[in-house]
């Protein structure tokens, strides 16, 4: 092959390749950002973008420290002997900017602590200024030196147990913080805390597996009847089914919720299994019927000549032959239920599933991104595995029918 023709074809294709790569990047960057953030410390998440995670960290607060403190305490914090800023017992008294502000407002040796420049009068402004200084002082003290970003699994621990305090779950447990000990036992049983993602994970599994098996089983019977049995109104009934596929779920929420209250099924797993079964059926029957109906009729004729009846034909021949359709359907239904929010929010609020639990964890001010990102990723693990392991089967199911919603 002529080397130039290869080069030529590469340059001809260059715009195509570029377009694909740019589009892929746009698609992957948001998820990547979430993924990387979920492994960063809460301090890092709050102060710098995730794209800086692999570059050396810009020291926080240098400018502020130099402006206010360095003239007396010195660059290294050891300028004043009685107040050595690298001393950890001293630092522990000022874990947050409000404590530091309180101390700075006190006179020292009869004179104001800070003369030139003065701290802003408005407390909020002063606090905002002192926050980076606190961080800087801690970095003076820290042995590791804070220069390199650290990655951590603590966000995942926080998300799993549903920790909502100001530090993180593991640290609180080590330091025996009372408010945390009141709620957690610092043992594995904390994973079952109803406010955590661990418990939500179990709830989701408990919802998703029966809600996947049940509709497929029931649909298989019905699909067989639609495909290989003769009865009045067959086409009419099936056309109705095609229409039912896209009935908006919203249409049925309140009547079913009321029904459930009367039957004592509200907030039970049985209730949500049945609801998902009802809504999974039209699509499942449609897809299975198209598949079973396309099996060659000669096969049916020959098993009937051998004396089979409908039930044996269905159970011993049709079901095994339908494995591909069942697999597609199962993956489809499973992902749909795993990712469902609306139905779980209404019918299973006392046992929140992953999607519902995530919305419970949202802090409207955006102060807990480190936990949110971990929580979101916990909810992605199973669907991602299913998706990448069975992508072909999933796509086949998508192509076989119209699509449910």
């Amino acid at each position, binding site marked *: 092959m002529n080397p130039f023709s290869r080069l030529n074809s590469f340059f001809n294709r260059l715009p195509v390749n570029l377009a694909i790569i740019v589009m892929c990047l746009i698609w992957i960057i948001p998820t990547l950002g979430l993924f990387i953030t979920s492994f960063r410390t809460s301090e890092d998440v709050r102060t710098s973008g995730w794209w800086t995670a692999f570059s050396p960290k810009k020291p926080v607060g240098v400018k502020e420290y130099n402006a206010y403190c360095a003239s007396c305490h010195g660059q290294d914090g050891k300028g004043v002997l009685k107040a050595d800023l690298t001393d950890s017992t001293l630092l522990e008294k000022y874990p947050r900017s409000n404590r530091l502000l309180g101390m700075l407002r006190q006179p020292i040796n009869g004179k104001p602590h800070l003369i030139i420049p003065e701290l802003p009068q408005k407390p909020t402004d002063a606090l905002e200024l002192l926050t980076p200084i606190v961080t800087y002082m801690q970095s003076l003290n820290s042995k590791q030196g804070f220069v390199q970003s650290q990655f951590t699994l603590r966000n995942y621990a926080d998300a799993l147990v549903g920790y909502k305090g100001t530090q993180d779950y593991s640290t609180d447990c080590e330091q025996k913080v009372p408010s945390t000990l009141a709620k957690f036992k610092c043992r594995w049983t904390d994973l079952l805390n109803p406010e955590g993602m661990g418990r939500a994970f179990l709830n989701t599994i408990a919802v998703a597996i029966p809600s996947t098996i049940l509709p497929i089983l029931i649909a298989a019977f019905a699909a067989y009847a639609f495909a290989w049995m003769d009865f009045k109104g067959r086409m009419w009934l099936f*056309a109705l089914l095609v229409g039912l596929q896209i009935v908006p779920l919203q249409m049925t929420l309140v009547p079913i919720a009321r029904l459930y209250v009367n039957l004592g099924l509200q907030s039970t797993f049985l209730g949500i299994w049945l609801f998902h079964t009802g809504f999974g059926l039209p699509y499942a029957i449609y897809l299975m019927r198209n598949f079973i109906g396309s099996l060659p009729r000669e096969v049916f*004729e020959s098993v009937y000549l051998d004396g089979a009846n409908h039930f044996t034909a269905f159970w011993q021949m049709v079901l095994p032959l339908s494995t591909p359709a069942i697999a597609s359907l199962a993956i489809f239904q499973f992902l749909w239920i795993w990712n469902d929010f609306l139905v779980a929010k209404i019918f299973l609020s006392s046992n929140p599933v992953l999607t519902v639990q995530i919305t419970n964890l949202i802090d409207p001010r955006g102060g807990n991104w480190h936990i949110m990102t971990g929580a979101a990723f916990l909810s992605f693990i199973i669907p991602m595995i299913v998706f990448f392991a069975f992508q072909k089967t999933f796509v086949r199911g998508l192509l076989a029918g119209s699509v449910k919603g």
Partner: protein
Amino acid sequence: MVPTIMKQGRWVPFFYLLPALIIMFIFIVYPMFNTFVLSFMDKRGTLPAATSCVEGEPCWGNLENYRYALTSNTMLTALRNNSLWLILMVPGTVIAGLLFAVLADQVRYEALAKSIIFMPMAISFIGAGIIWRFVYYIETGRGEQIGILNAFIVGFGGKPIAWLSTPPINNIALMVVGIWLWSGFCMTILSAALKAVPSEILEAARVDGANELSVFFKIILPLIMPTIVVVTTTMVINVLKIFDIVFVMTGGNFSTEVIANRMFNLIVTDTGRSMAIAVLLVVLTIPIMIFNVYRFRQQEAMR
């Protein structure tokens, strides 16, 4: 046709059908009627809707909830937004999906590239909402921008934008999330249709001197048109029902309300109104339901 040898009794089919029919009746058919009835009731769903009318204000009698659903300001915003979603997001996903299907068809790493675009389909809308809230995040204090979009803008010397609370930009921001989520779906189905176009036809056209653009617009596009129609109708349904994205990202505030979110918000506080909105949602989907049934009948006739 069913082979004659397989003839069965009159009632046998119903033993196979009955479990499915009963469950579908209880969970889909009966609630639809019940919802329809409730849409003429008051807040608690016990008294006729006319009782919730206020003296001196416009009232539609027992259709009062429909007055809310069709003329109130919030609902007009929701209807306007759903129309916007329809006009922008449906073509957006279909075109992005088609474009990517056509492009990826020409390279060797097609499978990998398509997986990346398709991946958002595996995760929940709630999860996607969190991913994009983080992208759009704005730091209003003195700290650094940790949302990548605003960091980008600030990096080029611009001012950060409150993507999710500034109309009308927030509606566009939400639609971008929708396009990100659904393009992979459109791409997958359209890509399968593209692959089914016989290459002989394309070769023949190229030999006759047609350039790539006219091959695409005059041959490929007409051939895959039926699939484009199917994908478009599916997307229309998805957009009409759009809920989770709005719920988790803006909660319908800052004029980003949509029909399904309004319906959800009113479920507990005002059942009558909520149900009227649900009925409205179904009425909007009926044309597509009819179209799907019609298409199905045509397919069956060809079998």
